[in-house]
């Protein structure tokens, strides 16, 4: 019975996210909650945020599982995503500064710490587990803000956010279910995969809806919580390398946590043919998105595909790492 529920809930997650986006899109358009898609020649308006739909799709299975099993890990995950969703929604409606957003998302780590849903040890390839009684809670405290903000920064082209989250969750699912042999924990990455997939259908090129900060932060916080609860810290870290590189390059270029709307010079421009082209200006941030487009003018879908391919390669490396952990 439990395995049927574990299999059904991710499907329900997909259905909720999918249907809510369909209902949310005309609502957002009616209330003029739309933004310009700068990477399109016609500068079309796209509704934003899809965060409420993504949050409902992720939160509903967690609440159901908590009431069915009384296991606090589901309640802690729900509370983490709820806190981060509220912060993201406030940012979508009022625009918070980059540093304040980073500080506030630390609150998302608190349910994981309060309910002690973590195991204070990390398993390393070849060496096995290392006990980190004092250090591990600090790692938990940093995981949610770092992961959710790094995922937020990867939302640069149509489809990159949904595609990246699908690959991250799929690699985590393969590792948990097939390499570590813990299928009971696979409900976390599977739920994330299904919600990301439903969002990706609308967010892929050309986007019908944008996630907004509420959507991207929620996806990141769920991935972070899932990593801690399922004890896949090391392989998930390696799957996450492109997001780390992207986030670090943005921070290093603009020297601090600056809200993306405040970046003065855009690293990517649109040429007369409607293709993406890198800015030659030294003042524009040297981001991963800019390095991707540096091969020459290219359509947005090609740039998006290249970022997703980079995540796919990292996911492959993370699976190899997980196999080394079993060795």
């Amino acid at each position, binding site marked *: 019975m439990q395995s049927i529920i574990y299999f059904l809930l991710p499907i329900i997650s997909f259905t909720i996210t999918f249907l809510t986006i369909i209902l949310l899109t005309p609502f957002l358009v009616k209330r003029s909650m739309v933004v310009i898609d700068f990477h399109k020649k016609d500068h079309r308006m796209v509704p934003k945020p899809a965060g409420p739909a993504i949050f409902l799709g992720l939160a509903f299975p967690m609440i159901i599982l908590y009431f069915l099993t009384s296991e606090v890990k589901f309640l802690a995950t729900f509370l983490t995503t709820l806190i981060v969703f509220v912060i993201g929604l406030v940012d979508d409606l009022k625009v918070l500064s980059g540093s304040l957003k980073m500080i506030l998302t630390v609150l998302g780590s608190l349910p994981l710490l309060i309910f002690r849903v973590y195991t204070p040890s*990390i398993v*390393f*390839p070849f*060496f096995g587990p*290392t006990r*980190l009684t004092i*250090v591990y809670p600090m790692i938990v405290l940093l995981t949610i803000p770092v992961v959710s903000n790094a995922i937020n920064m990867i939302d640069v082209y149509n489809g990159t956010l949904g595609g990246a989250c699908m690959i991250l969750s799929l690699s985590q699912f393969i590792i948990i279910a097939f390499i570590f042999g813990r299928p009971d924990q696979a409900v976390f990455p599977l739920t994330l995969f299904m919600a990301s997939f439903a969002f990706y259908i609308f967010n892929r090129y050309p986007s019908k809806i944008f996630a907004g900060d509420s959507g991207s932060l929620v996806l990141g916080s769920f991935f972070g919580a899932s990593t801690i609860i399922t004890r896949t810290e*090391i392989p998930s*870290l*390696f799957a996450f*390398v*492109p997001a*780390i*590189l992207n986030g*670090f*390059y943005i921070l*290093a270029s603009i020297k601090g946590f600056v809200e993306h709307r405040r970046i003065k010079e855009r690293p990517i421009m649109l040429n007369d043919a409607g293709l993406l082209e*890198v800015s*030659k200006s*030294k003042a524009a941030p*040297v981001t*991963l998105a*800019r*390095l*991707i487009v*540096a*091969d020459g003018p290219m359509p947005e879908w090609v740039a998006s595909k*290249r970022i997703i*391919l*980079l995540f796919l*390669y*990292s996911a492959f*490396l993370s699976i190899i*790492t997980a196999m080394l952990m079993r060795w």
Partner: protein
Amino acid sequence: MNNFTRLIFLVTFAWVTLILLSYVIFIVIVPFPALSNTFFDRFIVGVLKVLLSAILFILWLLSLLLLRNYIANKSIFK
């Protein structure tokens, strides 16, 4: 060589070095015992562990930054 291939190499470099960095920090530095059981010794060793880990992490980030600048100079700013 196109930039995408360079980025694949960059991700591979980050993967290998991050494995090594995590080994050094969590298997060598963090479990390193204090010289004696006095509060002062434990405190000093704790501070040194944090400092050493932070220095290694910053060095890792700097290496990624150097590689980014190399790739940018070969493509965007050439």
